[in-house]
């Protein structure tokens, strides 16, 4: 490809990056405001216990160089965040960022695996029902996806634990014994439960089917059909790639939210379980770090989606 062809694409990608950066700035501001408005701060605690008057408190503020105005506090907090200093956890005393990244990898396994499960189930159903219309099989499987989406995920998790572990003894109750040869097999129940029960499977089926049906009725597909070319090849970009990246990007928050519950059910040592623990202990720095990391993951997903859209769709970069 020539440079002149790539340049508008690069420009658009830069624009998307700028938008993502702006949104993350907004995210950090919202998180800061929530923390700023929450009752109590270290100084009031100190004042109540040890210091005699407000003047002493103000003196301590000055000595520790804590700015009084909220925007100054925000800026200093933001500069710390940008340098990767998320503070230390109140409960464990460990630095937040390294902790979040350590457990975040487990969550990444869980969410990516469950997304694959969702897609493996939903995509064939969507393609079949778009190509063949509503047969008995596609009808029952669509109904099945709706039933499954309405299940609360923890309830489904307990049913799976009950059936697979108590009744049949297929899996051990504890996870993470990766030293054994079939260690990956123990990851299957939580991944399956989150993939099936996170409530997005029916959405994926419906959206993908609608988009495919729309694309199949377009003129260029009719032309391809008339000249005997492969319909699948022609409809792949618009009918499959774009909708699937769109739906994945928009469902990442839901899957991350579902991960909180599933990790709780299966005692999975991940970000969601850590967030739950932090909320239980009112561990501000930790939950704040987790929120920001989760928002970064969500933004990355939609960034990838828009990049795919720009690269696939030549019209997007021509304006």
């Amino acid at each position: 490809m020539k440079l002149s062809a790539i340049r508008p694409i690069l420009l658009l990608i830069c624009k998307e990056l700028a938008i993502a950066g702006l949104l993350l700035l907004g995210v950090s501001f919202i998180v800061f405001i929530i923390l700023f408005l929450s009752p109590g701060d270290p100084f009031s605690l100190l004042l109540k216990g040890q210091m005699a008057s407000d003047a002493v408190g103000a003196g301590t503020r000055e000595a520790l160089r804590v700015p009084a105005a909220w925007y100054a506090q925000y800026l200093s907090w933001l500069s710390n965040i940008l340098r990767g200093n998320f503070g230390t956890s109140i409960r464990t005393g460990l630095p937040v960022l390294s902790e979040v990244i350590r457990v975040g990898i487990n969550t990444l396994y869980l969410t990516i695996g469950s997304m694959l499960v969702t897609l493996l189930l939903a995509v064939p159903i969507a393609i079949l029902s778009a190509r063949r219309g509503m047969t008995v099989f596609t009808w029952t499987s669509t109904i099945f996806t709706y039933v499954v989406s309405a299940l609360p995920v923890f309830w489904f998790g307990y049913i799976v634990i009950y059936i697979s572990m108590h009744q049949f003894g297929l899996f051990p109750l504890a996870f993470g014994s990766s030293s054994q040869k079939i260690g990956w097999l123990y990851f299957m129940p939580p991944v399956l439960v989150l993939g099936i029960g996170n409530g997005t499977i029916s959405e994926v089926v419906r959206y993908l089917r609608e988009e495919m049906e729309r694309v199949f009725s377009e003129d260029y597909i009719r032309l391809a059909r008339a000249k005997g070319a492969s319909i699948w090849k022609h409809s792949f970009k618009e009918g499959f790639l774009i909708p699937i990246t769109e739906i994945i990007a928009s469902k990442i928050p839901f899957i991350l939210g579902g991960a909180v519950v599933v990790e709780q059910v299966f005692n999975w040592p991940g970000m969601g379980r850590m967030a739950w623990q932090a909320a239980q202990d009112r561990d501000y720095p930790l939950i704040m770090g987790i929120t920001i990391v989760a928002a970064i993951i969500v933004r990355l997903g939609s960034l990838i989606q828009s990049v795919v859209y720009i690269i696939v769709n030549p019209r997007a970069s021509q304006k």
Partner: protein
Amino acid sequence: MKRYSQYSTNISDFSDVPFWKKAGTMDLVYVSYGIFIVILVIVSYILGAFNLLPFDPHEINIKLLMAPPKTAGHILGTDFMGRDILSRLIIGIQAYFLPGLLAIAIALVIGTCFGILAGYWGGGFDTAITYINNLLNSFPRLVLILLMVAAFKPDIYYIMVIVGITNVPVVASLIKGKIQFLKQKYFIEAATALGLKNRIIIFKHILWHNCRSVLIIQATLGMAEAILMETSLSYLGFGVQEPIPSWEIWFCLEPTTLCRASSGRRRHRHLLYCLPSWVFIYLATG
């Protein structure tokens, strides 16, 4: 959405057919379901307020722990603390549905306002509201709620306000798309040419005649989501807490007892608590 809007002709606006005959069948189903929920809540309030329940929902009967149905006047039996299940089911309706109603009310009102601003006036409003929507979409909802819980320790109604606010982008983008589509239609142009006020065009021609069905569908979907969120939160221990009777608490207690339970009776009961959210999702997607 695209297909649905083509049905809405404005010819019927001038006919003498009463509105309940004009409405489509699905409209009636949705509306009657909403009214049914409201009536359920009101009935449970009345029964609770005038002592019309068969038993006091908080009364503990130690002699009858986990009694099977139809023992000593308890129609559905008693729970693990010997409290009458039927009375607690009736009172539990309030804590089960009210937070969800609050969440969708907030989502619909704010979302519609945003949608109108972005769709009808566009320009700067559109950019700003798209930014706000993307911002709200950046947070995984449960993580945001956990953040609020860590910061404020709010009760379930405040949490449902947050759920409502995080539902705003969905409603706003739907209404925005709908209005942008409708603005190209001739009847809106005609209304503008006739010199009608903006608020009449927006509230009568756009919202009432053309966005009603979208809003109702969104309301039922949002209700189902809010109820699922509520049950998840109760499971995590941040929702409605134990002494208050609520449906989702059983829902959360049941699976944990399931692994220990030996009697087959209890195993089937928790399927019952799934029903409301299932019914909502079926109606909304149906």
